[in-house]
């Protein structure tokens, strides 16, 4: 459950800033779609609820894409194809189907905020780890020289899996200790 929706985002977390941007974009879509889904849920016949949810989600993703391109072109270029891919992020459809379609607006908003913030933190953390190891910088702030040898592996896709695995180990360790 913890790793729900991580798959399409492994590609963009090559730096902390990208991870943060992707997380916030996803948070926005999740929040808006949860609100709308919980508002219109009684108007949608059960059989067509999934297509209806997808249209709602896709609309918000497109809005995010247009707004990013217009106002934060730098981030838009970095995230590229991964913004439209938010549509197929199972986290968003999962919450719409499992939570927002059964609960009222207020709890849907809280659910989206909780889930979304967790996602933002996870992506930023993953991005930060990969950026520190792979580029020798954090939020574009460089602490080793431009030509220093860094673990390039970590900004390549395999590095995403390695970093994610170690973060999960850490997370499990912490959560088993506290329970």
């Amino acid at each position, binding site marked *: 459950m913890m790793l729900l929706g991580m798959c399409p985002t492994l590609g963009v977390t*090559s730096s902390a800033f990208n991870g943060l941007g992707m997380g916030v974009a996803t948070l926005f879509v999740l929040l808006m779609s949860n609100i709308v889904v919980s508002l*219109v*849920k*009684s*108007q*949608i*016949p*059960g*059989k*067509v609820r999934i*297509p*209806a949810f997808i*249209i*709602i989600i*896709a*609309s918000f993703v*497109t*809005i995010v894409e*247009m*707004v990013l*391109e*217009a*106002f934060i*072109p730098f981030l838009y270029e970095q995230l590229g194809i991964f913004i439209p891919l938010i549509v197929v992020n199972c986290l968003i459809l999962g919450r719409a189907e499992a939570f927002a379609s*059964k609960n009222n607006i207020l709890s849907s908003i809280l659910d989206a905020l909780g889930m979304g913030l967790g996602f933002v933190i996870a992506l930023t953390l993953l991005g930060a780890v990969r950026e520190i190891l*792979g*580029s020798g910088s954090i939020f574009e702030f460089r602490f080793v020289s*431009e*030509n220093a040898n*860094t673990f*390039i592996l970590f*900004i*390549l896709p395999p590095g995403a899996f390695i970093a994610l695995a170690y973060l999960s180990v850490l997370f499990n360790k912490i959560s088993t200790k506290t329970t």
Partner: protein
Amino acid sequence: MMGKKKDTFLNMTLSLIGITLVAGLSLGYVNDLTVGPKAKAKLEKKLNALKLVLPEFDNSPVEDIQMVKSSVVKDSVEIYPAFHKNSFVGAAVIGSTEKGFSGLIKIMVGFAANGDMLTIEVLEQKETPGLGTKIKNDSFIDQFRGKNPETYNLKVKKDGGDVDALTGATITSRAFGEAAQLAYEEFEKNKESLKSLKN
């Protein structure tokens, strides 16, 4: 679950039509709102790159743009001439190649009037992070600054040229040199017609 509508054909059709209608209208509205800023952001990016690669100019290179056909690349090559007090001081040429490690590399090369390369800005690239992306770094670009491709061979050292290839990114460096070479050739070919633009 409360008050769900029945799964009748009419209900399903109506609710989907309703949702798509609202979605379509709101997307159209947002598109209208963002179309201006989007174009502005693109133009600004181009202007910033131009300011970086060109010597001081007082004309508007974007308005004086020359599109020339080239046999090497699919699209026509963009040349932005720069004038200062009505004399030709140089031009920025967009060089591109499909031979990067991951396809398209697009660079903007600033030339002084005599053909010296002033500096190079990378506009688009999809190279490997940490290896090929170093073509953006000053430490790589520096070797091109102030050189004239007439005497400075834009091939990598491995191919008998003068360019120090990036470690682990020879293909990228080779493509970069090729794009710069293309830009230089177009600059030389069109230099005279550029000069006559403001006379």
